[in-house]
């Protein structure tokens, strides 16, 4: 009976940590998202200065964020871009403006616009990084603490 309680308690700790990790990963995903946006700016700036490839070729990069990769794929196909929930309305407008710039004019005009937009995206990345650093470990610790409390209650 005691062993069953220990096993159940351990399961509670594991589940609690797992839930906490899932919650914390949202901050990581947000950071990866902005990291991917900045990466695509760098790729475009470089390409516009040198090879001037077509958009589908220059944006064909391995992005850290899966949700951003899906947005890029939609953009290339001309489909509606679906932004994740953590993107605010203001940030959504910035991203839509960014994508409307790509491929729409000559290389110098695009480069100037993208360099300017990149400074905004760097700020967003910085904010998301701070949020991630601040909250990730705290949430994991809270999850662990809740798990231990449940273990104690069970035992």
């Amino acid at each position, binding site marked *: 009976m005691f062993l069953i309680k220990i096993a159940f308690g351990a399961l509670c700790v594991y589940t609690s940590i797992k839930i906490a990790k899932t919650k914390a990963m949202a901050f990581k995903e947000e950071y990866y998202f902005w990291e991917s946006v900045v990466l695509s700016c760098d790729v475009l700036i470089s390409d*516009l200065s040198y090879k*001037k*490839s*077509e*958009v*589908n070729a220059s944006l064909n990069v391995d992005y850290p964020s899966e949700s951003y990769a899906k947005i890029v794929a939609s953009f290339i*196909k*001309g*489909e509606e871009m679906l932004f994740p929930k953590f993107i605010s309305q203001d940030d959504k407008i910035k991203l839509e403006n960014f994508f409307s710039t*790509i*491929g*729409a*004019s*000559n*290389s110098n005009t*695009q480069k100037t616009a993208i360099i300017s937009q990149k400074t905004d995206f760097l700020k967003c990345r910085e904010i998301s990084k701070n949020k991630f650093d601040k909250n990730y470990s705290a949430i994991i610790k809270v999850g662990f603490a809740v798990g231990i409390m449940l273990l104690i209650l069970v035992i």
Partner: protein
Amino acid sequence: MRSNKRLSKIQYSVYEFLPEKLIKELSALKNKPLNEIRIRKDCPVKVVINGEVKILNKISLSEAEIERVILRLCKNSIHAYEEQIKRGFITSDNGERVGIAGEFVKENGSILAIKNVTSLCVRIPNEVNGVSNKFYDKFYKNTGGSVLVLSKAGVGKTTFIRDLALNISKNENKNVVVVDERNEIALKGVKNKKSNHCLDVLTYADKHFGFTQAIRTLNPDVIVTDELVCEEDAISLVDTVYGGVDVIATAHAKSIEGFYLRKRFSTLKNSKVFDYYVVISKTGLERNIEIFNSEFKKLCF
């Protein structure tokens, strides 16, 4: 997403950038050879089918629709086609040359961009195999040399030199460099053919740069290039031939006499660099080819 189900296989490449309403009308042509499509803002679209002009009275494009055609032609990457647009044309992957008419924006004397596009002229290349075979077998195979192909616009000069380049590449062990200033000569299908093991293509390189680059780095036996339009082209060509490389080129002239009288070709005439002049003319749907030697004497063909 555009539906591709009803697209004709033969003309599919043109349909990639044309609007749906025009595609529907062209599909009704049922695989007749399409030579040219002329689109003018708010005017009925004109098509040339098998040499005959047909006006599509029900179809016209607005300025916004014409801009969308250009965006699709550039695969939503205007910057990738910037240099071409400045020169007033865009060439698709499959060799369709789209001439653009509109307002040219200048800065410091150079063309920066085109805005308010009002006309497009889509020229569809027709790869006609064997059009140079008779000339190649009867004359060129035995002697080689430099060739100038003359005709009016749209009669088949580029088709002829494309076929001649392929003949040389296929049958002789000569290095053939194609200086393809507008990406019209070496079509995608031509570039990918296995028989092209002797063909090197410089796409979008102007003649002076192309000839110089070819001679310095590609060891050419023959250089094939399109339309000579100015004295600078002629000078580069003469230098190249005198440097020991045969050149095959084209020029606009309705006859050998027409070429002879054109002032811009005085350098070519006086330097006598060409071993053969090929004059192509059109009577109805029939094409006639006349061959002249370096002394402008007509050869039996």
